[in-house]
């Protein structure tokens, strides 16, 4: 089972939901922090990092002796990562997505690839939680290759929780794609609603099952709830605005240890998700 925890807006509580859900289950789960631009699940779990592997993007290397300056490489590159200003190509590594197209089309075989490190994937443990996180190197613009490397640690037979990057662009889509269900965390504010709508449109385009977790209920207004009702979007959990939760977060501690009853509510969230997935699987089998 793969549960992706995402949101349109940042700072709505994705990490809060991910780490507290993982800890509340009190059994073997896998928590994968895909928010590679600033992974912070480890702070709340006190995870013990045991392994680290480099993640690279294959960048083209041009053999200028063999290159005839035909420009086929520059023509195929959609990102202008390789251009032909005069008679020899120029490569811009930070623009390269590593697709290998330039190497394939080069009629002289003058292009080879060399990995350039863009981040790392680390694994470790926090009690029964198997922990994986990606970290992007400073100054790198592209998160998806690292997100993909983190997701290679998904084990479909286990419970996998993915803490996804915010937004609705490539990093988020790379993270949620392939999950069994997406939990969209939002807050009952105008910004929360605006970005929730974008996130709902995104997961609908991806044709993925999803539900909403409303965090900090009690602040703002009721427009998020009205939107969910109108759009037939299931609200799977509500987390009430509670100073103790905010204080725990600011200390890097788990909310379930600070607010009585929250642990049980996270367990119930998991049960709700499991039931929905089971019902869906049954419906698909028919």
């Amino acid at each position, binding site marked *: 089972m793969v549960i992706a925890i995402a949101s349109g807006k940042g700072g709505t509580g994705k990490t809060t939901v991910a780490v507290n859900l993982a800890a509340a289950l009190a059994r073997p789960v896998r928590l994968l922090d895909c928010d590679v631009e600033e992974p912070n699940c480890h702070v709340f779990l006190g995870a013990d990092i045991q392994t680290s592997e480099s993640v690279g993007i294959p960048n083209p290397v041009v053999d200028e002796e063999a290159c005839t300056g035909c420009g086929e490489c520059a023509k195929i590159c959609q*990102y*202008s990562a390789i*251009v*032909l*200003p*005069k008679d020899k190509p*120029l490569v*811009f590594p930070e623009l390269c997505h590593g697709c290998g197209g330039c190497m394939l089309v080069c009629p002289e075989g003058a292009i080879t690839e060399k990995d350039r490190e863009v981040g790392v994937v680390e694994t470790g443990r926090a009690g029964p939680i198997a922990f994986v996180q990606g970290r992007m190197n400073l100054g790198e*613009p592209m998160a998806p290759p690292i997100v993909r490397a983190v997701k290679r640690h998904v084990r479909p037979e286990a419970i996998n929780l993915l803490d996804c990057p915010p937004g609705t662009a490539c990093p988020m889509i790379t993270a949620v794609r392939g999950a069994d269900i997406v939990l969209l965390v939002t807050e009952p504010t105008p910004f929360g609603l605006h970005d929730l709508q974008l996130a709902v449109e995104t997961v609908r385009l991806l044709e993925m099952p999803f539900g909403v977790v409303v965090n900090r209920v009690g602040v703002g207004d009721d427009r998020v709830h009205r939107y969910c009702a109108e759009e037939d979007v299931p609200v799977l959990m509500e987390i009430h605005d509670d100073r103790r939760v905010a204080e725990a977060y600011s200390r890097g501690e788990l909310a379930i240890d600070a607010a009585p009853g929250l642990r049980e509510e996270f367990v119930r969230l998991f049960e709700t998700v499991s039931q929905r997935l089971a019902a869906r699987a049954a419906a698909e089998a028919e």
Partner: protein
Amino acid sequence: MKLCLTAQGNTLGSPVDPRFARAPYFILYDIETDGWEAVDNAENVQAAGGAGPQAAQRLAKQEVEVVLTGHCGPNAFRTLQAAGIQVVAGVEGTVADAVEQYKAGSLTPTEAPDVPGHWT
């Protein structure tokens, strides 16, 4: 000799656009004949990334020798340099003014990008 001026519009009266690769138009101006044409740069304005190298490559194909613009970042500069195209940054006013200033010799090429890249 062909100049390229980054412009906000497609006439000689248009203001010089401060951005190199994402300017709406390139005015290509031949200083020997005073002939000119406006090239629509909409494709680069919309580009997600790589606008600098792409624009520079395009101007190289047009056999431009000098670019007059507001600012030029590192990727664009590197590509223009590889193409042997000089860059004059800090240009303001209308396209026509800038051409006159260039002809009068009051503009000097820059030796380095005058603004940082988007990712550093």
